[in-house]
């Protein structure tokens, strides 16, 4: 499979000492890692006050991407399944919330279980038959699924056709009206922390190991009594849940959603965050998500050249760090 990480080629490149060698020393003990986490958390909590309103909106978007990248990382990074239509699950979550809150007047919090269930069903419908196949058929099927969801959303009355759904009410939480950008920033920060925690716990579990076994060698994994279809389906469904929860909060944050938010380009951006940061590495994919969102923003001064510069930057990263920005030694 194309996504099996650590082919002999890239590994020999990684073996060379690099500038990262010095940086990994900063994180080589649990204490140092703990300190680093506390510092990062403090910076993230203070960020809206320090960087201002505009940056808060951008950082919220980066956190959304981090959640989605963490979800896609379970599918792509852990289980080694190439999903080119991840935005579909994002759309399922967003539209579930959009439709249920506007057309049916549901409370936002009540729609979340429905959004999750809808994404799980979609995951089972798409994944159930295709995950039995070997190799990259899944990539094609997910690509098609992504397009089907987007085109369906653009043509169905219930999804508001091309103009989408607007006027989605922003939620209340115990008397706190989550409405200002800064409110959503903190909501997404909490969601990201939960997403990280879930990923960490899964990766160190029986299921998490099974994903790696299946990714590295399907036959050997099966010879060890692992049902590869079941294990892959679990990854696919968990990825779908991450996507739909991200989509649900995306919908109430923007209050309006439309089909172009769920394009193939979105799926590729999520995938880019995962691959860029380093598949299967939690800090890596979060970093990847921030690079994907903040990169073009930081290059804003370059005007219309910024995407060109950004693209060249991405190419260089992939050339020199083919297994992602995050150091290889730290698998998780």
């Amino acid at each position, binding site marked *: 499979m194309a996504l099996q990480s*650590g082919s002999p080629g890239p590994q020999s490149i990684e073996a060379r000492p690099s500038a990262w060698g010095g940086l990994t020393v900063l994180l080589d003990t649990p204490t140092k890692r703990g300190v680093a986490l506390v510092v990062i958390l403090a910076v993230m909590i203070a960020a809206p006050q320090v960087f201002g309103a505009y940056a808060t909106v951008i950082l919220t978007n980066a956190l959304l991407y981090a959640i989605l990248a963490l979800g896609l990382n379970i599918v792509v990074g852990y289980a080694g399944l190439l999903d080119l239509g991840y935005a579909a699950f994002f759309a399922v979550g967003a539209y579930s919330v959009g439709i249920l809150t506007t057309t049916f007047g549901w409370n936002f919090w009540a729609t979340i279980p429905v959004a999750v269930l809808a994404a799980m069903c979609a995951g089972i419908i798409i994944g159930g038959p295709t995950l039995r196949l070997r190799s990259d058929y899944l990539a094609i099927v997910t690509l098609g699924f992504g397009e089907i969801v987007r085109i369906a959303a653009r043509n169905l009355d219930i999804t508001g056709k091309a103009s989408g759904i607007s006027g989605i009410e922003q939620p209340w939480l115990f008397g706190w009206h989550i409405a200002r950008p800064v409110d959503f920033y903190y909501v997404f920060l909490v969601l990201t922390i939960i997403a990280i925690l879930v990923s960490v716990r*899964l990766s160190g579990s029986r*299921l998490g190991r099974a994903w790696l076994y299946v990714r590295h060698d399907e036959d*050997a994994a*099966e010879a060890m*009594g692992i049902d590869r279809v079941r294990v892959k389906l679990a990854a696919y469904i968990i990825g779908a849940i991450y996507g739909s929860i991200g989509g649900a909060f995306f919908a109430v944050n923007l209050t309006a959603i439309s089909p172009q938010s769920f394009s193939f380009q979105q799926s590729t951006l999520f995938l880019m965050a995962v691959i860029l940061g380093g598949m299967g590495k939690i800090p890596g994919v979060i970093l990847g998500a921030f690079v994907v969102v903040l990169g073009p923003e930081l290059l804003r001064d370059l005007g219309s050249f910024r995407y060109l510069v950004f693209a060249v930057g991405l190419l260089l990263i992939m050339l020199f760090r083919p297994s992602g920005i995050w150091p290889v030694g730290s*698998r998780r």
Partner: protein
Amino acid sequence: MALLDLKGVTLGFAGNTVLSDVNFAVAEGVIASLIGPNGAGKTSLFNCITGFYKPQRGAIRFDGAETLTLKPWQVTRTGIARTFQNVRLFRQMSVLENVMSGQHCRSRAGAIAAVLRLPSQRAEEKRIRDAAAQCLRFVGIDPEEWDRDATTLAYGHQRRVEIARALATEPKLLLLDEPAAGLTKGEKAELVTLIARIRDQRKIAVLLIEHDTSLVMSISERVSVLDHGVMIAEGSPKEIQANPRVIEAYLGSEDAEAALAL
């Protein structure tokens, strides 16, 4: 009754017959070998037993139940474990994690239990770890090596980790596909002791495919000979060594060296 019993197993790929009408049995607690010239269909027979290949005809019974229709992972759960001809450890995973994979089919915690870190899940994780550690000790891999990337171990040690991984599935029958290939003389001697210990201490029947004829003859109680997909002889090592058909099969093949060893 035999632990493993194959009747009339016939396998073909695109018109080529790989196995034809193979009858074969392995008794409980025995050390048996499957030998034969290159391309005789030995590994194919292993793949039929473990569910990787589906024979067109025949019946395979293991421990009293039909296993022919089972998928490989289901076969493993019934109690057949295997190793591969070319070592297939999971890359970029530690030795211990590799062996823990064997316990997957003997444990059950799912995603929710893992996310919530339920007490049952933590207890099970400890059980998995302990079982894997015990298998590693059994095959003689020292704890210093447990956290190393499995594929960085010396080749002979990788072979032993693979056996530990198979043992971790708690099998009744262990299939070893050329376990001595690439081992030094000393390592082969250790392998012979290990195989004997697997049978004697763990009460696991062992079936091995092996080209090293002297190794086969020294540890096997039963030897079966496969040639061009046909089981041509079956018996004790002595009987096999005296069987003219076996010598003929070997002399007609590239394995003349093995024939001399007979």
